[in-house]
């Protein structure tokens, strides 16, 4: 039987009768024929015994023909039932295999997550970022913004997270549980206080190092307000441009910088004339800034802070959006 005939048979099977009912009907049909033959023979004058013998001889093997009819009636169904059973068993085995595989993959995934989590969990035990902010005279500076970036390397991967806090009335600050004391980590902190030039501090602690991150002390220097003027390439002021500090390089050679990821708390917005006053820098600093025009992307620009305390920066890839 071809696949097409098999499919046609399957679709035509419909509600199937019990096989014993099929056998009974076949038996009744064939016996009717033999009985009719015997009756015809008796009517022709044969004895009852001879009539039956002749009838059976004329008909042929009752059992053989009944079996042939049975095969025709239920053979397909039996074959399809067997095929269905094999298909069901195969699907159950496949399903079982997939379940086992998915569970194994899930266990591996969970184990990997737990491993990373354990690394982080154990790394977060202890490991505080602490410090103090004061001016050059040692006077505590309350309300100083501390922009903190913590770098870790869990399971060989790299992770960088930004935090922010403010110093208290004593100029002290604390961010608890950020540092993995038994794994490599780095901390970068930038300190911003109104009227003072910002400073930053970076410390890398390698794996196995016994020392922890020591409390970080900032001694901030006073800074005057510097006016920044931002113009587009058409010479017009860039109203509404956003500005953030990137790097400050005093003449002494040290460098202080802010990670872009952490700079949002100290961003400022230019006014209608494209101007903003900042106290991030001191006279003589080389300043680098992030600038984002209203309809543009962030760019970096450099300026020298002179005694005039006014800096004009031309953002060459932008033009003013309005009048």
């Amino acid at each position: 039987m071809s696949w097409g005939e098999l499919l046609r048979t399957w679709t035509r099977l419909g509600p199937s009768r019990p096989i014993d009912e099929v056998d009974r009907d076949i038996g009744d049909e064939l016996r009717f024929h033999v009985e009719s033959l015997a009756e015809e023979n008796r009517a022709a004058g044969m004895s009852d015994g001879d009539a039956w013998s002749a009838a059976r001889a004329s008909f042929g093997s009752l059992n053989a023909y009944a079996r042939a009819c049975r095969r025709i009636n239920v053979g397909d169904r039996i074959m399809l039932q067997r095929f269905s059973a094999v298909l069901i068993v195969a699907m159950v085995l496949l399903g079982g295999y997939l379940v086992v595989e998915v569970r194994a993959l899930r266990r591996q995934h969970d184990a990997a997550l737990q491993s990373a989590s354990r690394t982080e969990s154990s790394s977060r035990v202890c490991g505080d970022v602490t410090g103090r902010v004061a001016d050059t005279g040692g006077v505590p500076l309350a309300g100083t913004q501390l922009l903190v970036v913590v770098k870790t390397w869990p399971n060989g991967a790299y992770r960088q997270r930004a935090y922010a806090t403010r110093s208290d009335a004593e100029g002290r600050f604390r961010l608890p549980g950020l540092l993995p004391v038994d794994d490599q980590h780095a901390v970068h902190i930038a300190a911003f206080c109104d009227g003072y030039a910002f400073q930053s501090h970076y410390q890398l602690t390698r794996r196995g190092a016994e020392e922890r991150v020591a409390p970080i002390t900032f001694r901030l220097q006073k800074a005057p307000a510097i006016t920044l003027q931002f113009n587009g390439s058409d010479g017009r002021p860039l109203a509404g441009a956003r500005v953030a500090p990137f790097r400050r390089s005093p003449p002494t050679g040290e460098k202080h910088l802010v990670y872009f990821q952490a700079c949002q708390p100290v961003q400022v917005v230019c006014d209608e004339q494209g101007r903003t006053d900042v106290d991030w820098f001191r006279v003589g600093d080389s300043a680098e800034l992030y600038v984002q025009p209203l309809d543009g992307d962030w760019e970096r620009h450099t300026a020298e802070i002179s005694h005039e305390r006014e800096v004009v920066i031309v953002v060459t890839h932008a033009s003013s959006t309005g009048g």
Partner: protein
Amino acid sequence: MADVQSKTKLLQGSLDLLILRTLCNGPLHGYAIARHLHRVSNEFFNVEEGSLYPALHRMERRGWIESHWGASESNRRAKYYKLSASGRKQLKLETAAWIRRSDAINRVLNYRPAEG
């Protein structure tokens, strides 16, 4: 024996056609179909009558004939067969094929080489 065997082969090759043609005149049970074939063929088809039933069941599975149970002339339970619509189409096809086949055989049998 050889004669019975050749008749059996001939019958098997054309049994479907003969059954379809027999049922053209109305529903019949298997015994009546066998009696009709025996009588109309001048007793030529006189093989084991049980061989009719696998053919009937096969044709019913193919949808060429339909069956129902009823009471016979002697008031016994009997299974009657009748021609279906697709059976009528099949009869036409097989009759046409038979005619083509027998024409071809007759042409070969009646062939005489041209004289002179």
